[in-house]
């Protein structure tokens, strides 16, 4: 049994310790907001937070996540209140939406560390996340907007 702390809750899972965290989240814990896109840390669709770092859960052994704080998109907020979620809705970022959990989780770490990210900061933080629908210009715009909302105390336009 492996003990995980996911979105503030402690759960025990009976899985092969080598199983990637991604599949434990998706199949064992039914947290399907975290997506499979490539399995080799190339696309970022599986991005979650591990002790506050954005990591690719498709290549993270579940055993290596034991005892650490795991946050998935489902744990970002319970009510769409995170500034990134608000900005994503305001700017209508998603198209198919499949990559967006990972995009938002990568952006959340950026925003937690940098209250006024530049375009270059956004490139650095977001280049590991692929969007096949091509929403990059809107993601960029939404990160700037979320940063602004966060600075203004979360007000929506």
């Amino acid at each position, binding site marked *: 049994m492996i003990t995980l702390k996911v979105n503030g809750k402690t759960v025990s899972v009976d899985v092969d310790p080598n199983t990637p965290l991604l599949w434990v989240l998706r199949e064992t814990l039914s947290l399907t907001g975290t997506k499979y896109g490539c399995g080799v840390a190339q696309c970022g669709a599986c991005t979650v937070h591990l002790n506050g770092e954005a990591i690719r859960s498709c290549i993270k052994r579940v055993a290596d996540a034991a005892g650490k704080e795991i946050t998935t998109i489902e744990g970002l907020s319970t009510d769409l209140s995170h500034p990134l979620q608000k900005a994503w809705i305001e700017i209508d970022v998603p198209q*198919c939406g499949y990559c967006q959990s990972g995009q938002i989780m990568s952006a959340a770490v950026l925003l937690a560390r940098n209250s006024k990210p530049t375009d270059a900061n956004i490139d650095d933080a977001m280049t590991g996340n692929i969007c096949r629908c*091509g929403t990059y210009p809107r993601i960029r715009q939404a990160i700037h907007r979320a940063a602004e909302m966060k600075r203004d105390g979360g007000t929506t336009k």
Partner: protein
Amino acid sequence: MTGKLKRRDFFRIGAAAGGGLLISLYLPEVTNAKVSDKLKFVGPQTFAPNAFVRIGTDDSVTVIVNKSEMGQGVYTSLPMLLAEELEADWSKIKVESAPVDAAYNHTSFGIQMTGGSTSTASEWERFRKAGATARVMLIAAAAQNWQVEPQSCRAENGYVMHSASGRRASFGSLADAAAKIEPPKDVTLKEPSAFKLIGKPTRRLDTPAKVNGTAQFGLDVKIPGMLTAVIARPPVFGGKVATLNSEAARAVPGVRSVMQVPSGIAVIADGFWPAKLGRDKLEIKWDDGPNANLSTAGMREQYAKLAQNPGAIARKVGDPAKALAGATRTITAEYEVPYLAHAMMEPLNCVVDLQSDHCEIWTGTQFQTVDRMAAAAVAGLKAEQVQIHTMLLGGGFGRRANPASDFIVEAVQVAKVAKAPVKVVWTREDDISGGWYRPMWYDRMVAGIDVLGSPIAWTHTIVGQSIMEGTPFAAFGIRNGIDGTSVEGAADLLYGIPNLQVDLHTPKIGVPVMWWRSVGHSHNGFAVEAFFDEVAHAGGKDPVELRRTLLANQPRMRGVLDLVAQKANWGKPLAAGRGRGIATHFSFDSYVAQVAEVSVDKSGAVRVHRVVCTVDCGRVVNPDSVKAQMEGGIVFGLTAALKDEITLDRGRVQQRNFNDYPMLRMNEAPEIEVHIVPSTENPTGVGEPGVPPVAPAVANAIFAATGKRVRKLPIGLVAMG
């Protein structure tokens, strides 16, 4: 309470005219289609006047959308059409995906499907009529209750109002009574000037679920008792299993069975990870079959040779041979583009629950009617015994409209041997190397210009595989040896060039091919528009001015051209080292023009800084969605222009994942500016038309910046020597 859909036949409008493919003639299920009573929209508390809308006593308005949501925004734009005429409260709108039924068939194509950038055109009238019908019935119910004339009532924002008496009733409170009203025989639709929703930028209804992890894609489906399968498919197309040792695979904890299916070897397990580990441990010897020696290099040689002589004539105007002979100057160039994978972010998957008398399928598909027939045939069931739950699609781009229903058929085959509900999951490697590509193409172009520098002759020889051949659509998709999708965007050239020939060679190659976002336009747009730039320069003409001249009889294309030139500051100075390139393209009945601004560094690396795009797609339902589709189409087209190719060596695909089949990323994405040209014409395509112009616009911009012509995609590094 009439939950049944018995009246909808009366309500269905006829097929839209004009070039619609009459697939219904070839698909038996459709010709015999009857409305099935199975489709009861349950809930006694519901008013369901037709197949597209249901109003609950709680005031909810559920719009049943028959098009697959793959990012293009149909789960918002089609409800907008219906809500506009219903006079619904937009905040009460819910969306459900339609089951498979003839009621939901494409109004032109006669099958239930999403593709060809036709969703808005197909539903523009039908969804508005569905809303108007419901509104008329709600008003009639209210008028009856109040004992007033229906003409004295009106609907607004989810209520029926009677101004004279100040009474009002919510749609929900009228649902029971409205269900007893005879539907009107005809309804009058609003004048566009009265639109409240249509044409207004409207936030997508599916966004909240896509930012909190609750959106359900096919891969997210879980049903009781479900196992997961990963398939080992042959490394060469058409290959077969020669010998199998599955001992090590079976020993993986969690693996339930290893079974041979027609497409390969299925490892069936408790979850994805053990299934994948099991597959890695299979020892399979493959019989490679007839395609063992296929190579991109060999094909390219064959294609280039074929291109030296004309093929089957797709279009001929005037006497191009004579005109070329008499031209002041001739220009010849050969263009080529590779096979391409769709590479949707959500890899293919399909959940099947197969029982003796019925089969349920959960998947992201664009091709419900075709898939259902194919699944039924494999399952030994009647089509009506198969139901498909269309989930959200994590990208489609054509791949999920497979003429052979490959990923559905395979999953039913696995379910047959698994003896349990099963989810088949494709890995990214399976997706990239699994075929069904955009064909590889080779284009030879020759133009003749007169003494004034104007083109007087244009010939275009196209070489590439047919997409339609071997599909149920071949009978009408291929005419006189010409697959219409091979020559689209070339044979229908809008430029007024007096002598023209477009011809086609269709080699038979054992690589499965299919439509890929913008289909034939994806290569013809590149060849035609990049060559046009060469012709303009050869004649000493400005590419915008020459287009203006040759598009004199194409006012809508002139409209997007003039606007893009203005918005992109065409002809004005640029920062040092930068170049501008322009391309225009007509596809899916829409007109698009794009100007790309690029620079090329000393190593030959291309940076696309900015793309300005103009589009005329007729009346616009949701302007923000149109902009999003242009943005997305540009990024999709840039990935193809700059980066990707699928190549084969000894029959084997050489790419596997995003490391060797890379996607454009955030740090490479240009600034994109989209302008919509207002129009009162009926709506036309939006999902695909943004793709074709971007590769030629970039190639032409590279020429402007460096003097180097790019005639082969992907561009990769420009040879700077």
